[in-house]
């Protein structure tokens, strides 16, 4: 046997060990990859993009984490607020349990409101005494309107009322609008009256005051009004004072609550009261026939027709009439009255009678107005003007006038009783009986 050292044994061992060492090194230091090899521009860009993507993903992740944290907080806060709301709601619900206090309080407030409006404010329309009321005024003509159930029914005016004193009869209160005075170019004065069919001019021959101021009283400042209301009774008065010949006069209306009738009284005083004569209550009643105590009916034939022409201006002088007027005079007249209006023609009958009473009956409304005075001398019925006067003689004073207004009334004459039977929703009696009842109640 030969101990031959093969030339490969030591070498092999060295080579093996060297190989193993290399391998180990390789493991530790891997062999260069392809990426270590010089990179192309595209690969560079790809690398950059990859890097940026990774960074973005990192940022997104961070943001997500932050958002998650914030969401958690927000949710907590929202939950807190919701809990508070629920709490408040529950508390509020606890407050409305006392509905009784709310209702009582509300009713009290409403009562206070209505009391306040009633006490501290005035209604736009003055309430009318019911069923009858009288509204008097201190306007020229001294008109007074009688209201029935709040609606204007008829009137009693100072202008249509007449008083006799010292055998001279004149209107109780004149109307300043009745007559005017105008002047022509030469300064001549004329009185102007506006009538239905013409405007009448007459030369002024007397004191102008005597022309324009007709009536025992003519200045509205001479009128004073008074009103008193007590339980169940209302009294209104027009008081005239500072008269020239008739020193003072007074018209008093007495109304009673719930009663469809009233009393009107007149009194006057003068220097020599014994010279006072008849006084006529002047009523203005439209669209009514007159039923007399003897069963006669006077039909209202009042007719006002409008003519197809303007009204003429006529001068009456020395018994002659003329339509020739100067321009100056025409202009002066047009300042005082409407000269361009249509002319009218008025017609109607007149009656002077002495019945015991009169009933004014409106066929359209079935309303009856009973007029009565215990000491009436006569009744002057002028359908031409729808003016009706009741003359009362002076006898140390004047007897009152009684007026009754009845709605939805039927009238039938009873020949046997010799009287009108009045049937309404209020009464079913003979006229005389009803009038006696009124007089005994009102005095």
């Amino acid at each position, binding site marked *: 046997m030969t101990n031959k050292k093969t030339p490969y044994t030591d070498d092999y061992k060295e080579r093996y060990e060297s190989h193993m060492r290399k391998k180990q090194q390789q493991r530790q230091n891997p062999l260069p990859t392809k990426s270590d090899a010089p990179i192309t521009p595209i690969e560079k860009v790809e690398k950059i993009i990859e890097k940026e993507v990774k960074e973005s993903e990192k940022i997104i992740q961070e943001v997500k984490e932050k958002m998650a944290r914030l969401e958690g907080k927000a949710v907590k806060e929202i939950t807190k607020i919701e809990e508070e709301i629920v709490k408040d709601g529950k508390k509020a619900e606890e407050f*409305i349990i*006392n509905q009784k206090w709310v209702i009582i309080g*509300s009713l009290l407030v409403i009562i206070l409101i209505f009391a306040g409006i009633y006490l501290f*404010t005035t*209604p*736009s329309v003055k309430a009318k005494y019911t069923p009858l009321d009288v509204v008097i005024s201190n306007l020229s003509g001294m008109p007074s309107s009688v209201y029935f159930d709040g609606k204007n029914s008829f009137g009693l005016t100072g202008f249509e009322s007449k008083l006799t004193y010292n055998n001279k009869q004149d209107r109780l209160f004149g109307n300043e609008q009745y007559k005017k005075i105008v002047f022509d170019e030469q300064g001549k004065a004329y009185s102007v009256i506006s009538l239905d069919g013409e405007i009448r001019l007459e030369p002024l021959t007397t004191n102008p005051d005597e022309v324009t101021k007709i009536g025992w009283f003519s200045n509205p400042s001479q009128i004073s009004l008074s009103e008193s209301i007590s339980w169940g009774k209302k009294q209104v008065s027009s008081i005239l004072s500072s008269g020239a010949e008739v020193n003072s006069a007074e018209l008093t209306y007495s109304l009673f609550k719930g009663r469809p009738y009233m009393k009107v009284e007149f009194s006057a005083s003068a220097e020599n009261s014994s010279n006072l004569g008849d006084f006529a209550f002047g009523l203005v009643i439209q669209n009514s026939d007159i039923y007399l105590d003897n069963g006669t009916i006077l039909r209202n034939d009042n007719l006002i027709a409008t003519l197809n022409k303007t009204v003429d201006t006529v001068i009456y002088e020395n018994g002659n009439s003329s339509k020739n007027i100067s321009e100056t005079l025409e202009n002066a007249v047009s300042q005082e009255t409407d000269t361009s209006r249509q002319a009218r023609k008025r017609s109607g009958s007149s009656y002077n009678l002495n019945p015991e009473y009169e009933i004014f009956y409106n066929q359209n409304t079935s309303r009856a107005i009973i007029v009565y005075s215990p000491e009436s001398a006569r009744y002057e019925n002028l359908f031409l003007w729808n003016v009706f006067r009741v003359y009362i003689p002076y006898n140390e004073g004047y007897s009152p006038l009684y007026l009754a207004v009845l709605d939805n009334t039927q009238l039938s004459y009873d020949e046997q009783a010799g009287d009108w039977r009045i049937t309404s929703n209020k009464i079913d009696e003979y006229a005389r009986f009803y009038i006696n009842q009124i007089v005994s109640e009102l005095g």
Partner: protein
Amino acid sequence: MKLHLSEKERYIIEHAKHTFNYVFQILLILFLLTLLVQQFYPDFVNSKININWFMIVVIVFGALSIIFPVTHKKEDKPATKKDLFLVISLGILGAIIIFLKLRNLGWISYVISALGGLIIILLSWMILTEKDGEEK
């Protein structure tokens, strides 16, 4: 700005809010009824109450109701036959009232009254049923 109120103060304020609301509702209904009566009896109404001041008070309480609102619970009730009957009755009543006011105009008053009644019925029904629709 949140006011920090005591329990008692909040109690009073809540009651006051409900009172304003309640008063406004009652006053509004009374005011509208008064206006309706005034159409037919103007002198009677105008002689009893000054309607201008009444209107001012209603407006004041309306403003208070808006400034201090009350939260109401929503009622999820659908329209019933009773509601329909009420709406139709009110429409007919409205038509009658319109006719009474306009009867002097002649034949056209019938047309206007009928249309008015129809509008009342339709609008009222629309409001009733529209509430149910929004909740769905």
